[in-house]
């Protein structure tokens, strides 16, 4: 077009998509090849990629590998504990984490990493892509009375065995997922399924698991568990016996007998120590189950998804009868309630001492609500467990034992993605960390299958040098910030805040 344009003609705009594309390409200067990389692709080495127009280091294990090799750069992510006020460096609050080495972008291509692994019986291994084997897992705590499966039952993901139900805890069912045997001891499908399950749980994604002879679970770290399609909202405040003890005073003036139904211990108020202390008359109730101490019964029903973690749907099924010679009388008021207060029923004995359903008085309903309101929201908690192996420690210092000792004596602190960890006593550096305390994208994987997670050792420079730390690899915070591609987070990323 030349000369004047009629004002109603639109402005001619060059092809916006082409411009965007050109603008978004990056030239990588990391090696002599100097790849020109389009958005969403990687360079020849697959270590650098174009993420939204930004040249980004994307290979997880090479970071660890380089730590091991005592050379090369670490790509840090800065995690700030307090609210970020916009300043670049916050002095002592500034903490460099290993997070950022955990990305798996892009997913369709495995990282071309090489780690010399010794395989028994051969001098070298020719494979299409060599990988690493790492041994780790998660412990999952599910706050629920619901029976999810018998102890030692296999837990499956996509049909493959990835772990098992381990010994239950108070108010919780416990799963143990991962470990070397599932990751690498069986067929590859099992290893891949195990790795994916661990990764999903660590990343706070909804994960579906099934328990042999048990339930179907949908679990997400920091969220209520879904068991056999039912969202479990509440965690019991106490077992049947404890609940009797806690609410006995409320009940003693409102009803003549209370049975608190629970998979572990079912409490019967008038027989219980609490009822005795309150001078409640005997009710003549006879229930099923094995008596422990007075008013406390084991195994009143089988485990299940009914009342109080049992398979009970009709609470009267556990009452054998009422005995007149032991205090039962017509008009006796009976409350039955589950340990979360979500299930309850009110009965009055008729002339034949048979419990008949009756409308629950408001005061009694209030006591049931009282139980429910004292129950905490049910949650799924995921702890990632792993160990810092010899080669990883050798990446820090010439004397790995020096690092271990420094950690034991608390001169060196250990964190995972900046989150505090629990260190197991005993040999090595084995830790557990709450995954919801870590930044998003902390975990990654390589196709071996193996999990990659960030790990930081923090100590004074003097201590570092004292145990043989690699002096030549020390870099100041300022130089790291100036040279490297970093992302700063202000703390609102933490999964636990959802």
């Amino acid at each position, binding site marked *: 077009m030349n000369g004047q344009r009629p004002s109603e003609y639109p402005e001619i705009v060059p092809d916006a998509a082409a411009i965007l594309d050109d603008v978004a390409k990056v030239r990588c200067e990391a090696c002599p090849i100097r790849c020109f990389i389009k958005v969403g692709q990687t360079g020849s080495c697959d270590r650098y990629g174009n993420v939204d127009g930004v040249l980004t280091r994307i290979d997880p294990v090479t970071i660890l590998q380089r730590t091991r090799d005592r050379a090369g750069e670490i790509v840090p992510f800065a995690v700030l504990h307090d609210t970020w006020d916009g300043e670049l460096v916050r002095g002592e609050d500034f903490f460099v984490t290993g997070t950022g080495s955990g990305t798996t972008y892009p997913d369709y291509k495995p990282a071309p990493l090489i780690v010399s692994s010794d395989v028994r019986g051969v001098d070298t291994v020719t494979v299409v892509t060599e990988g690493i084997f790492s041994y780790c897992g998660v412990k999952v705590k599910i706050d629920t009375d619901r029976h999810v499966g018998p102890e030692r039952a296999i837990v499956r993901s996509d049909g493959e065995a990835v772990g098992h139900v381990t010994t239950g805890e108070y108010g919780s069912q416990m799963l143990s997922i991962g470990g070397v045997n599932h990751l690498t001891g069986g067929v590859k499908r099992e290893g891949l399924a195990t790795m994916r399950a661990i990764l999903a749980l660590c990343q706070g994604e909804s994960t579906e698991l099934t328990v042999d002879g048990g339930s179907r679970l949908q679990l997400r770290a920091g969220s209520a568990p879904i068991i056999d399609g039912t969202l479990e909202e509440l965690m019991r405040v106490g077992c049947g016996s404890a609940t009797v003890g806690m609410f006995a005073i409320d009940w003693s003036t409102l009803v003549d007998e209370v049975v608190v139904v629970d998979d572990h211990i079912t409490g019967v108020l008038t027989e219980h120590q609490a009822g005795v202390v309150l001078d409640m008359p005997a009710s003549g109730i006879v229930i099923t189950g094995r008596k422990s101490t007075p008013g406390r019964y084991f195994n009143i029903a089988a485990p299940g998804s009914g009342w109080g973690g049992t398979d009970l749907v009709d609470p009267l099924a556990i009452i054998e009868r009422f005995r007149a010679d032991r205090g039962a009388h017509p008009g006796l008021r009976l409350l039955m309630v589950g340990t979360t207060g979500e299930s309850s029923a009110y009965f009055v004995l008729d002339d034949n001492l048979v419990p008949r359903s009756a409308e629950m008085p408001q005061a009694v309903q209030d006591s049931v609500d009282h139980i429910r309101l004292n129950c905490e929201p049910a949650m799924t908690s995921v702890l990632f467990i792993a160990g810092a192996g010899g080669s990883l420690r050798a990446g820090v210092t010439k004397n790995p034992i020096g690092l271990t000792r420094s950690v034991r004596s608390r001169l060196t602190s250990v964190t995972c993605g900046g989150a505090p960890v629990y260190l197991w006593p005993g040999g090595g550096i084995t830790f557990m960390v709450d995954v919801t305390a870590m930044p998003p994208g902390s975990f990654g994987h390589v*196709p071996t299958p193996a999990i990659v997670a960030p790990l930081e050792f923090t100590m004074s420079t003097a201590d570092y040098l004292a145990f043989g730390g690699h002096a030549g690899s020390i870099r100041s915070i300022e130089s790291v910030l100036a040279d490297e591609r970093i992302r700063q987070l202000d703390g609102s990323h933490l999964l636990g805040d959802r």
Partner: protein
Amino acid sequence: MSRPIAALTADGLKLHLQHGPIDLIITAEGCSNGRREAFAIAEDVMQTVLIDLVAELAILRIPAGSGRAVAGSVASRMISATSGFGEIFITPMAAVAGAVADHVLSHSMQAGLDRLIVNNGGDIAFGLSAGRSISIGLMGPASDHRLGGTVTINEADDVRGVATSGWRGRSFSLGIADAVTVFAHDAAAADAAASVIASAVDLPGHPSIRREPACALQQDSDLGELLVTVSVGELDAAEQHEAMQHGRVIAERLADGGRIAAALIVLGDQWCAIEGQHGLLGNRLLGPAGLPRG
């Protein structure tokens, strides 16, 4: 711009050299002086490998038979290893990993060493002194992460290179083989042959196989617009067998022509072995246990 990185493993027995996309694990056995010297030479050689390759990269991406000349040592090995394949599509880049391994080996292998192994991401060049041998672990079926088998190469065999190619690896493939392992005179020859055989293992047009133009995935790829395998769905035994047969035909031709000593093709749960005149695999292949021969 990064420089090559060199680091010893914790036990001091292996050297890791890395520059850009090149990762070498070098194992040297013999007296400690010999090992130290071999490592020093390897590190020195590594300083210019990538730079020299990059200088002639444009030529090396042109399909074989262009008649273009190169000056670099690694580049020359690549051109040589990929010539004479006739109508089969191949560029010198198909032999880059093996050629780099051969180049580093040729400079570092010395009298004082019993064995020297240069492993370039699964493409391996090795040197053996009199009476020595090497055992090579092979990849098993994709459904089983354990080793599929082991082959022992003796110093008397005319084999000093082994390479494995497959669509899941770091290089693109036109075919669907899980792994093609080739034993040849040197690593560059093994590398080129493995790529070619793996590309031939295929079921053209099969709906379960997803392909994309190579340049769409990696802009400067030497494969240009050619369709590379991105994913492979479920295939039944008959389909796996048919695909493998295409690869077998190529492998047999290469073996008969003396270009390779032996090849192994793995696809799904099946495998097949192809041998040249010297029967390399015959009595030396231990395992793969329990796998049906394709």
